[in-house]
């Protein structure tokens, strides 16, 4: 039976830049998916695009293309990515420029557009779409002038269209991570759009792949069982036409693919396990069967799905004030007592200067004595050192900046044994808050555009 190999070379923007190159060179692979967009990344790209209309995409992706384009073209390994961000056409122009520079021709690059809804928000609200926040239930209307991005999660279909059009590289903006794995399966095997079980299988494959090394031994509870984590191989799904697949990695790489590592990735960011909702299908994670099929090979089968919903998820973001945090290290005798005194000094000095922050808008954490999991571990009574981490948030950038000025004085005007204050005063950073919502899918799907062009 024909199988195709789909790898993931980038789990998020900031992931190992060598991973996709090693995936390409370390053994056979037909498709590589690469994710660059966290929930609020698009609002950062919006700021970049406002400054320079040619930007607004993941520039790291261009660095990758520059390293490997001749090899991609020669081996016909196809790349699927959301690196296009808010400007996939600009990203394509840059790839074409790189191709000309490297003397590579005959490369087709597909662009998927239609996810960006920011300019359409007022019109959508006027047409009666509440775009209510899925976490709080609030309607979007009062927030319209603060919105910094709004993008619908697209499904696999437009990517399939680009692949059918011969694209070696497909550039998307907001799209589900799972669609990047499902699309090549639909393209290769011609799965119908109502074959819910197989669409669910491709979606589960995508979920296992989407966080890169988290399927192959990274972030694994029994880390001591994982060989050569420094050289971890990124995950590959070997998928067959019937919807069953094997999760593996290239030979000679580090890491571990076992029922345990794959199970941990399946439960990662899980909600209701019977309803993993994507634009393409609803996958039932309680149907998944796992079996070890050899060293670093896990068979995944039995997956069931149900019809997709009439809605698409919209990921929007808005400006929600400012925040800053800073930290110092307190070492030596009575370290925790000294850290508490340092925090008290900061809050009291701010209060006297007219910059009081209530407990809901400030934080103080004592790293090293169980701060991440308060109440779970018993704190050591005499830790040799403690990191004090202080933070505030406020609608006013000026008030947050004032807080930033109170950390450095602790070095000379606080308790003894203060160190580790580096990097200057903490600066006020804009808080770009996340706004998840649902929208009737026809509002988006009727306007999706796919274009494939050749350099």
């Amino acid at each position, binding site marked *: 039976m024909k199988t195709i190999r789909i790898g993931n070379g980038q789990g998020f923007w900031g992931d190992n830049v060598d991973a996709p190159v090693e995936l390409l060179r370390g053994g056979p692979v037909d498709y590589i998916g690469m994710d660059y967009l966290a*929930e*609020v990344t698009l609002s950062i790209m919006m700021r970049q695009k406002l400054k320079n209309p040619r930007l607004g995409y993941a520039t790291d992706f261009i660095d990758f293309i520059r390293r490997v384009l001749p090899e991609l073209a020669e081996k016909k390994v196809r790349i699927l990515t959301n690196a296009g961000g808010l400007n996939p056409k600009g990203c394509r122009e840059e790839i074409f420029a790189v191709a000309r520079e490297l003397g590579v021709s005959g490369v087709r690059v597909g662009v998927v557009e239609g996810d960006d809804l920011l300019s359409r928000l007022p019109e959508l609200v006027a047409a009666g779409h509440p775009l209510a926040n*899925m*976490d709080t239930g609030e309607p979007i209307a009062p927030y319209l002038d603060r919105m910094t991005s709004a993008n619908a999660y697209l499904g696999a279909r437009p990517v399939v269209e680009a692949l059918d059009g011969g694209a070696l590289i497909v550039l998307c903006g907001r799209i589900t991570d799972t669609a990047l794995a499902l699309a090549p399966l639909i393209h290769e095997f011609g799965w119908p759009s109502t074959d819910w079980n197989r669409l669910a299988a491709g979606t589960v494959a995508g979920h296992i792949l989407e966080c890169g090394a*988290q399927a192959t031994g990274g*972030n*694994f*509870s*029994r880390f001591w069982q994982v060989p050569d984590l420094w050289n971890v191989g990124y995950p590959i799904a070997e998928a067959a036409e019937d919807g069953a697949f094997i999760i593996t990695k290239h030979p000679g790489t580090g890491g571990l693919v076992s029922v*345990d590592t794959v*199970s*941990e*990735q*399946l*439960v*990662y*960011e*899980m*909600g*209701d*396990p*019977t309803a993993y909702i994507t634009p393409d299908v609803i996958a039932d*994670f*309680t*149907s*998944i*069967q*796992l079996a070890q099929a050899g060293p670093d090979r896990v068979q995944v089968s039995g997956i069931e799905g149900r019809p997709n919903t009439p809605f698409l998820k919209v990921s929007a973001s808005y400006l*929600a004030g400012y*925040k800053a*945090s800073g930290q110092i290290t307190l070492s030596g005798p009575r370290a925790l007592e000294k850290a508490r005194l340092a925090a008290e000094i900061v809050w009291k000095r701010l209060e006297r200067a007219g910059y009081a922050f209530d407990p809901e808008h*400030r*934080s103080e*954490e004592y*790293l090293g004595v169980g*701060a*991440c*999991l*308060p*109440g*779970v*571990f018993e704190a050591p009574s005499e830790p040799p050192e403690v990191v004090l*981490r202080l*933070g*505030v*948030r406020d609608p006013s950038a000026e008030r947050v900046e004032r807080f930033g000025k109170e950390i450095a004085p602790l070095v000379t005007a606080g308790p003894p044994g203060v160190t580790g204050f580096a990097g200057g005063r903490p600066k006020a950073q804009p*808080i*770009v*808050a*996340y706004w*998840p919502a649902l929208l009737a899918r026809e509002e988006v799907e009727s306007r999706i555009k796919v274009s494939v062009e050749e350099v």
Partner: protein
Amino acid sequence: MRIALSAIAHARSGDKGDASNVGLIADSPELYPVIRQEVTPERVKEHFRRLVRGRVERFEVPNLLALNFILHDSLGGGGTESLINDAQGKTHGQGLLELEIEVPEALLPRR
């Protein structure tokens, strides 16, 4: 006998808005019903009482020998608004493995 979950299960956690989720996976089919009976949403809420302000929801995923817990209001505002060090609940899975439960001795891993 009383034993920490880390000896008989493994876990992974992540964020969903201002909630975190912890997937807890039993080491064997025999241990799964024990863990399902012992690790109730109430026990998890009590274990994380200083961390979780909201309710704890539990889903069963028997085919993976897993329980999935949703810890509502546990990230100090969630995502980019949060000021805390672990704003994505990345450590919550490791924290749950510290919970101690009663397990029949016959089911424990041999040393």
